[in-house]
């Protein structure tokens, strides 16, 4: 037992925010709207069946009117994530109008989540036209085209500012190289459009190149966005890990999700300066909410990503294997994968595989 403890301390190279004890860890859970509550419940059930040492702390992020009259995330939610440093989020609905900013964007700003990681892997047993996809897209999450700075200069002419800073680019490049190395992947591709946007994407590329020199065993290459789109739909196996600014990342990560079967099957994680938030990226699907028809795979795989981030790799591996096996067997598949099983049946089958 002492040897195990020492091995754990020595092998871990992460900052002090990690707790080394084998106690139960607290994780913030944001169930979300629509099908959010039922898939969160499914995930909690599966984690309990696998006996994962996690305690869930459920919070509600429905915006409330603050003392200054502006709508914002309730303070309780912010405190919870800041304390626990790790969170799992279901799908959120941004109400249209009413002066809200996009809730997802607000969460990202609040917790300084600077990198979004989306691994896309072809699922055995759920065939799409692409069978050999194994790509991870890492996207800068805070600036770029989504800075939200827009003005109407004169009547009929609008400008939108794309902001690229050296700090953010360097941060995401460091994260990308570290991720590639830790997950034993061989190649990192920076995606850009520096032939057109010479200064902004040029700065991003320069930061990537500088960081590349510190990781000589990771193969680094640069490709134009057009070429990546073209090659990705013809032969996705030529790409391994991709790193890029905000807009290109948004489009490419959704493209890769489409290659493996859609947003209902892709996990996603957001890494920040002082914590991480893992989420499912599909919508709230209000038409099937409450009917026990939802597919919890996306949230479950995000939970698995979360376990890996928290260094609980054994549990992560077991839950992932169980999930893939159930999908491969095709007997218990939810409606979106072409089956007829209910959400609860799918969940129970996974639990059965774990016990």
């Amino acid at each position, binding site marked *: 037992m002492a040897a195990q403890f020492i091995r754990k301390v020595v092998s871990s190279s992460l900052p002090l925010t990690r707790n080394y004890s084998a106690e139960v860890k607290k994780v913030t859970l944001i169930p979300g709207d629509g099908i959010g509550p039922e898939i969160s419940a499914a995930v909690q059930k599966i984690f309990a069946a696998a006996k994962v040492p996690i305690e869930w702390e459920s919070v509600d992020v429905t915006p409330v009117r603050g003392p200054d009259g502006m709508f914002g995330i309730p303070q309780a939610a912010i405190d919870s994530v800041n304390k626990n440093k790790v969170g799992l989020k279901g799908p959120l609905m941004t109400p249209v109008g009413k002066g809200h900013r*996009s809730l997802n964007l607000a969460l990202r700003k609040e917790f300084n989540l600077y990198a979004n990681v989306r691994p896309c892997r072809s699922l055995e047993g759920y065939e*799409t*036209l*692409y069978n050999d996809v194994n790509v991870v897209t890492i996207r800068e999450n805070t600036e770029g*085209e*989504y800075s*939200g700075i*827009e*003005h*109407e200069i004169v009547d*009929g*002419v*609008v*400008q*939108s*500012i*794309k*902001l*690229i*800073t*050296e*700090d953010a680019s360097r941060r995401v490049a460091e994260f990308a190289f570290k991720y590639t190395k830790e997950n034993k992947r061989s190649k990192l591709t920076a995606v850009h*459009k520096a*032939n*057109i*946007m*010479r*200064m*902004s994407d*040029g*700065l991003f590329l320069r930061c990537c190149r500088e960081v590349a020199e510190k990781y000589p065993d990771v193969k680094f290459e640069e490709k134009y*966005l*057009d*070429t990546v*789109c*073209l*090659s*990705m*739909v*013809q032969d996705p196996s030529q790409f391994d890990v991709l790193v890029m600014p905000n*807009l290109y990342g*948004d*489009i*490419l*990560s*959704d*493209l890769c*999700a*489409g*290659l493996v079967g*859609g*947003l209902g099957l892709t996990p996603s994680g957001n890494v920040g300066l002082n914590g991480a938030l893992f989420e499912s990226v599909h919508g709230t699907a209000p038409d099937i909410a409450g009917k026990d028809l939802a597919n919890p795979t996306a949230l479950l795989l995000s939970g698995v990503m979360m376990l890996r981030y928290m260094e609980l790799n054994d549990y992560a591996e077991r839950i992932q294997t169980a999930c893939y096996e159930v999908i491969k067997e095709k007997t218990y598949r939810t409606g979106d994968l072409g089956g007829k099983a209910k959400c609860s049946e799918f969940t129970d089958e996974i639990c059965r595989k774990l016990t």
Partner: protein
Amino acid sequence: MAIRLRESLWPLLKTSKCWPTYFVRKTSMSAKNNSLHKHPSTKRSEAIPAAKYGGRHTATMLPGGGIGPELMTHVKEVFRFAGVPVDFETISIDPRSTGNEELDDVITSIRRNGVCIKGNIETKSLSTGVHSRNVVLRSSLDLFVSVLHCKSYPGVVCRHKGIDVVVIRQNTDGEYSMLEHESVPGVVESLKIITTENAERVARYAFEYAKDHGRRKVTTVHKANIMKLSDGLFLETSRRVAKDYPEIDHNDMIVDNCSMQLVMNPHQFDVMNTTNLYGAIVSNILCGLVGGAGLISGINYGGHSAVFEPGTRTTASRIAGKNIANPAAMLNASADMLKHLGYNQHASNIKKAIELTINEDRIHTPDLGGTYSSEEVVHNVMRRIEKLSGGGH
């Protein structure tokens, strides 16, 4: 008597080539041509009639870099074989030069000739002040719309079959405005400009195209949930124009959802109306789905000129000089140019010959999974043209 002589000679002198104002007019015209920045007057320049001398048209040819030069020789070969009455004015641009004098020559030439066939021009200068020559060319000539007709070739093995989508892309505005500055060291801002005028022109073009070609649906691609003002303006404008065409369906889609849908089900799209960058992404995805960068050609239309090029605008420097580039895209572009000039028989012969080469004869270059060289493809195309035109002219 001297006065009478003067009176009779005066009009003669005034219109002669020696009169000072003749030269003044000429130089002021070239001053207009020299302005490479987007200036309102460049849009309103007079239409110059298409250069047709002695029954033969003249077209500008810009080989560009990478595989451009070799593909241009194939085009010339095919034209000469088929007896097409088009001569080419070839202009090369040195990729390493930092000035824009050669580009001025190109622009004057295109204005004079009215049509141009081009490869992708390389801009190797590392200085951030030098703008991409392709973009400068497009904005100076006001080539405001780019049309890309992505159609599957049955002879090419792809995952999706029977794709037939037209991408109408705004060609001058948007993210390609090339207005960037470093406000503070380490912080760079790049401006994306959207104007109502350009958005309206491209939306109207899209709907007119749909009407003329019997298409049922136009989809606007945008990201107005995040870029509310800029893409919001584009979306609003296309919705407004859609009201003038009630027989054509109009819907809109966010660009990330659109790329996902393109990969999962491209048959739901008919005509797509996009801004500059999203158009680049969508057209590259579609070209990839249809079989690669070597098949589809694109057309850029502007006030008074048309520029024809391969759809994906790549230089493909990796395969340059190896005789394995796929000439179909450039030959398709040349056929489009002939159709624009009015040589319909020649244009359809070339297009049909390319189709037969790819679908029936299955002469494929390596990018389509075959083993033939570019020259072999071109020879087969010429053989087919000979058969189609009845074995002689």
